[in-house]
């Protein structure tokens, strides 16, 4: 790493604002010391934006927390230096760190829903920060800080509580708090990963404007390579506690050197732009997960509509005071068809009603009006016995692999449960089937005797897929099935799904907020906004020539979508 003094274009002597040298961080756990970060090094110049990219557990947040001296109680800096303006703060006293926090180093935390104290007004929480750093903290100052962060009508907003704010507004309030004392370095830990893409774009645009006005350096922590490349001058890639590659963002993306970075670039959904199956047909080696034995190709019959959704409506009654209720239309007049053997994606932001559609298709909620026709039969007319049979043919995969598996069930019982419930075969044949299913999702058979909490997120989602496949269903409803996974694992799971589709002729209804994922897996897209279907069409049509403004805004907001990429990646 270069540490020598260089002359920038402005002609100012540039010294790094923050320099991390050979940093090592370890945590005390029940089984001894665990090294979370090793040999991390990065340099941030004044006014520069640096992004740390990595999957969960790579040590990116830990590194940032060490820089602001907020490691959890069982963690400590076990080696290396953190130099702020040349001063080593890796073991600075608590008093010194309190001086630095807020004034010199600001922080925007990850989750806007849990990082504001729900019992204090927003204004008070801003005031608290200002006062702690010895700045004027009158109502006018508070309002100014908030309006700078792009909150309209700041004076009135300051008197509101966090629950009265939307997610995007909360994140603006947190940014306001982080920047209120005009720190020289702002650490933004996944500042937008909990937000919808369009909101994410607004927030990041605003953050960029503010920090460039103030000349603040930004340390941006994210799992999204596309977002990092788009927003930062320099990208640092971390993997298992090590910095594996660092460099100018565009160069790193176009010419990744380290094998891990190469894999990351190749599987980032925001950067890849081709459908997995198409890529396979062209001979691109897309996965190493294929179960042994040649794939049996089932020719999908592309003609028959296996699912017909007709004028679907769902109205929820919201209670509002004494006996009164207001109607909330979650799904409004939605119609589309799903052809057998294809993948249809429903895309929308949170609150668009896409999950409600999935619940109704699964027959877990009753539509207020409209019809869902599965294989020629209206599902609302089914009696209990027919619903039981229907469940065999339509299976779900849920969003959160940490929540959708019963923690008290081992993997064998989890996958066996649908077989037992539907009284398929005897004990021996069920065990055989479970072993086959594990093979299909590329998990070792020894997994059978594990419990969900012993598996990683990707492994759990494979177990969930195996369970969904147990009854040989025809349709699988994936409700945000890959949203909770890291990019590499996400790519593996998407590959697995595509592979199973071509082998078993499955039909997928894919519910997601992530347009980049849609591009990789779907044949048809339905875009939903506020309960209404705004656009449908084949994936290529919708992505290449979106008709509606809303779809355009969604596409435009995909981070990294407009970056130039080398041909072998794109």
């Amino acid at each position, binding site marked *: 790493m270069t540490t020598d003094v260089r002359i920038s274009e402005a002609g100012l002597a540039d010294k790094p604002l923050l320099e991390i040298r050979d940093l090592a961080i370890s945590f005390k756990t029940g089984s001894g010391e665990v090294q979370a970060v090793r040999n991390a090094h990065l340099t941030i*110049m004044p006014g520069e934006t640096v992004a740390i990219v990595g999957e969960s557990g790579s040590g990116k947040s830990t590194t940032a927390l060490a820089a602001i001296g907020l490691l959890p109680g069982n963690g400590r800096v076990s080696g290396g230096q953190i130099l702020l303006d040349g001063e080593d703060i890796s073991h600075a006293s608590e008093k010194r760190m309190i001086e630095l926090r807020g004034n010199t180093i600001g922080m925007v935390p990850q989750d806007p829903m849990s990082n504001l104290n729900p019992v204090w007004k927003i204004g008070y929480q801003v005031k608290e920060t200002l006062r702690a750093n010895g700045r004027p903290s009158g109502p006018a100052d508070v309002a100014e800080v908030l309006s700078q962060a792009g909150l309209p009508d700041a004076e009135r907003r300051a008197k509101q509580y966090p629950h009265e704010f939307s997610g995007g507004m909360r994140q603006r309030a947190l940014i306001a708090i982080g920047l209120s004392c005009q720190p020289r370095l702002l650490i933004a830990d996944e500042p937008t990963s909990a937000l919808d893409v369009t909101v994410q774009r607004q927030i990041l645009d605003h953050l960029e404007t503010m920090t460039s006005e103030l000349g603040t350096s930004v340390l941006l922590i994210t799992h999204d390579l596309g977002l990092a490349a788009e927003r930062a001058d320099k990208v640092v890639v971390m993997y298992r506690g090590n910095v594996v590659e660092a460099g100018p963002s565009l160069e790193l993306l176009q010419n990744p050197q*380290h*094998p891990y970075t190469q894999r990351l670039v190749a599987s980032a959904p925001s950067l890849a732009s081709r459908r997995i199956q198409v890529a396979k047909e062209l001979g691109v080696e897309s996965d190493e997960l294929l179960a042994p034995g040649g794939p049996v190709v089932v020719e999908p019959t592309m003609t028959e509509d296996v699912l017909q959704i007709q004028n679907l409506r769902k109205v929820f009654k919201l209670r509002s005071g004494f006996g009164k209720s207001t109607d909330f239309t979650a799904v409004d007049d939605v119609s589309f068809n799903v052809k057998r053997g294809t993948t249809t994606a429903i895309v929308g932001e949170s609150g668009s009603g896409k999950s409600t559609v999935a619940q109704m298709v699964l027959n877990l909620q009753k539509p207020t009006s409209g019809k869902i026709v599965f294989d020629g039969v209206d599902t609302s007319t089914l009696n209990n016995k027919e619903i039981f049979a229907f*469940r065999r043919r339509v299976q779900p995969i849920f969003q959160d692999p940490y929540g959708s598996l019963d923690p008290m069930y081992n993997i064998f019982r989890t996958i066996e*449960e649908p077989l037992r419930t539907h009284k398929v075969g005897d004990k021996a044949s069920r065990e055989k089937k479970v072993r086959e299913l594990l093979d299909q999702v590329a998990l070792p058979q020894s997994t059978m*005797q594990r419990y969900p*909490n012993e598996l990683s997120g*990707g492994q759990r989602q494979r177990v969930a897929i195996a*369970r969904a496949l147990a009854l040989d269903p025809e349709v699988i409803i994936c409700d945000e099935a890959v949203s909770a996974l890291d990019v590499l694992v996400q790519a*593996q799971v998407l590959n697995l799904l595509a592979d199973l589709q071509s082998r078993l002729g499955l039909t997928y209804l894919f519910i997601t907020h992530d347009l980049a994922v849609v591009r990789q897996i779907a044949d048809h897209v339905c875009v939903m906004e506020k309960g209404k279907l705004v656009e449908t069409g084949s994936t290529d049509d919708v992505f290449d020539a979106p008709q509606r403004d809303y779809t355009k805004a969604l596409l435009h907001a995909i981070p990294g979508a407009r970056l130039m990429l080398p041909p072998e990646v794109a």
Partner: protein
Amino acid sequence: MKTNREIEHFVAPVEETPLLATDSLKTDQAPLSLWADAWRKLRRRPLFIISAVMIALIILVALFPGLFTQVEPNNNCQLANSDGAPAGGHPLGFTFQGCDVYARIIHGTQASLMVGVFSVLFVAIIGVTLGAIAGFYGGWIDAVIARLGDIFFALPLVLGALVVSQLPFMRDNRGVWTVVMILVALGWPQMARITRGAVMEVRNADFVTAARSLGVSRIGSLVRHVLPNALAPIIVLATMELGVFIVAEATLSFIGIGLPGSIMSWGNDIAAARSSVRTNPAILLYPAIALSVTVLSFIMLGDALRDALDPKSRQR
């Protein structure tokens, strides 16, 4: 802000960070069922071994008191020995009435243990069932069960017991089972509340929805998925209530509506020892120790069981 500053492109040497498979898995074997797994883990826990040995001993004492003492505890009391110090064959001394303290504790084990264990058992059966139904189904069922529970909950133990024990049936059959009935009638709402809360927390979990969409019936998902995941607080409360019930029997016996004087129990002894607390506290101390040791054993057993059943605590 994009700058034009020259930025070095750093690449870590590859051999320094071997690229492990993103999904690597340990492949050692483990037993198949939850209970078998729990048992394997329990066997090795000192906490479980100690508590199990102690409980086995207590049960042995309750079933065969004759094995532990030959002294007649009740009929052979001589006032000459009143508050007497330990003597040969009477290791713990004598009560105010001149009865052998050790023999009374041994013979009192049966009634005390029965009251405690059976009260907890029935409270668990009734409380868990009603609480689970209330928490799982919600709506008017929940409202009815919750209000019903509140009625019993609002009755103070002594007052409620006084009223219930005046029922003709109760008055005529005073004994271990009437005490159990009184304690169960007044004790189930707390268990129901705890269960209801735990069930409500779990019932909306994704894995319950997943089970439902696999075709598992509502009641099936309650029994097979929701309840096992709500077990921890139930076990804790049950082990704690065991002690509470044994003591409550003493309270009831003290005001004369619990066990009749002819049935020996620790509670009766503790109540009777009140008159000699200042002169001879040992008489109070010994049955109290027996009670504490019993309660402690069950609490330890509950702890060990809860840990063993929690898959999150699986370590290897």
